[in-house]
């Protein structure tokens, strides 16, 4: 078959590809996100990533609709991390949600510790650490000239004046530098419990064991002190 000739991952056992495909289809949101495809290309025309990458939300929807197991596997490894998750593709007249399908495919890639997920998240660990440990995604102390040289001289100026500029913010919750706002410690403990109870910690272990250990170190004592049953 022609598709077999184009299969970039012919060495990967079919059973593995099929298992991943079934995992994607089993997500409760899958049926809400895919109704078929008119092949009109409106999603591609609206897609920012399609302008700059070899990426097509239409191809995502079509491969899943046709149950093209080999192509879906190829997309999980090569395509899905280019998506901007802006959801411009929701313009679809068939009411598909290609961006949502990508979200499910990415989750599947992370849960299974696939190479594409590990590569895509290289350099991203500190962000995951920040959001999972502080409950806020970015912090003021991330703004440094060496981290954001492309942001121009204001990155240097902000970094140099960070402590004082944060104190010069009228809302009392914003006098922080290591988190976006001052999150109550009890609130953080509740967030940690959510990560444990929903399998998110297991997902982190699949893609980055070192990060998993650091997060466990931060969370376990607080959860135990608070009397939450984490086993």
């Amino acid at each position, binding site marked *: 078959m022609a598709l077999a000739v184009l299969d970039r991952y012919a060495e990967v056992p079919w059973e593995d590809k099929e298992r991943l495909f079934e995992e994607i289809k089993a997500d409760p949101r899958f049926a809400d996100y895919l109704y078929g495809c008119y092949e009109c290309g409106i999603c591609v025309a609206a897609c920012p990533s399609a302008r700059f990458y070899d990426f097509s939300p239409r191809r995502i929807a079509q491969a899943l609709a046709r149950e093209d197991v080999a192509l879906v596997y190829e997309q999980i490894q090569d395509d899905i991390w280019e998506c901007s998750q802006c959801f411009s593709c929701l313009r679809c007249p068939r009411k598909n949600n290609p961006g949502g399908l990508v979200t499910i495919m990415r989750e599947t890639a992370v849960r299974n510790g696939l190479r594409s997920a590990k590569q895509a998240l290289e350099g991203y660990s500190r962000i995951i650490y920040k959001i999972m440990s502080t409950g806020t995604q*970015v912090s003021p102390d991330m703004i440094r000239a060496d981290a954001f040289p492309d942001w121009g001289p*204001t990155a240097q100026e902000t970094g140099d004046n960070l402590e004082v500029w944060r104190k010069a913010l009228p809302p009392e919750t914003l006098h922080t530098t290591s988190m976006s706002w001052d999150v109550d410690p009890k609130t953080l403990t509740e967030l940690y419990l*959510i990560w444990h109870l*929903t399998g998110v910690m297991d997902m982190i272990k699949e893609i980055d064991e070192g990060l998993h250990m650091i997060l466990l170190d931060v969370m376990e004592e607080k959860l135990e002190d608070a009397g939450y049953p984490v086993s």
Partner: protein
Amino acid sequence: MPISLPVVQSAPAPRGRVFTRSAPDPAEDVREKVLELEARGEWIVPRVPGPWVDVTTKYGRTKKIPLQHTWHHKSCGQCGHIPGYSTAIFWLHRTLGLDYTDPRDQTSCTAWNYYASATSNAAAQAAVALRNFAAAHETGYFPQIHCGTSYGHYKEVRAELVHHPELRARVRDIMAKLGKPMVMPEEIVHYSEWVYAVRDRLAARRIHDLSDITVTVHPACHYYKLVQEDAIYDPDIYGGQRTAVVSAVAHTLGARVADYSTWFDCCGFGFRHILVQRDFTRSFAVQRKIETMKEEANPDVTLTHDTGCVTTLDKSQFAPRAHGKTASIPVMSEAQFAALAMGAHPYRVCQLHWHAADYRPLLEKMGIDWRERWREFEDDCERIKKGEKAFLTWEDVDA
């Protein structure tokens, strides 16, 4: 040297034809389902506190926007990197005398990370949302959500919880372990909807003439593309063909709102791209948005209403200079713009020193003496450094 280009089109006046629907829209109103689940005892649905403003959403439904007693669900990107965004929202509430609370018992929605890395799942995202809603409910205040992504994502979560009883059961179990009830607000409200609802009150307090200010608007994807039926549309703004928030505010404040061809494009944020693949973000922001706005509308400022959009459009303008791309437009939220128009301090309140693109020409055109205001802010900082003041306070701002 910047080239002065003509403004090619000023909108958003109605274009004559009014588009109306003769039949009810088939899309479900998920809010009805939320109330049905409340009637079955599945969760608590806190009602929008009065007084509220009725606004119209995309398919003609009515949405209630609470004016006060609001629980401010802050944005991590705003508070962390562009804090004048959050501060301006608070200042507008204070100036209008509308009660609010700024909680510490709040986490990020964590959706920035979810859309960037997928290191989460539907149950975790729903539990984070409901934990925050329960925290708001405990205070008796009603959530007003600052971030467009939080707003859009929470509406996705609401639909998932409504349609998937197994997800509700799982989240109910988690909430029980946290000792919290299941809570889903009657409406999910974005701050820009509140700004839209109070735009006439803001305009009544305007002290700077904006009639010579040209504005372009970047509508935030996660505000009006995610769960699109819940976004505000208004026949007086672009004939009801685009979301009305931000454009209506700028228009009501007396600025000229100019159209440009790539208004539907996203900003280039990309969630993971802005952090670890910024070549894409910069290229898209400058080539598809900033340069197009400059060529077609030559605005004095571009306004938007989400965290990532301000960050992306503002911070992406520096590096392309290396390629001779010098188009520059100041970027801020409509809350900051409205506050400036009402006399807010550009540094104590709007915190414009955290922004990258040069905003000073805009301030000068608005009649704001930025040199004197900066001197005042530097004095504040000096007093903080010397230990004469611990923090800048709202009392300092109001003085």
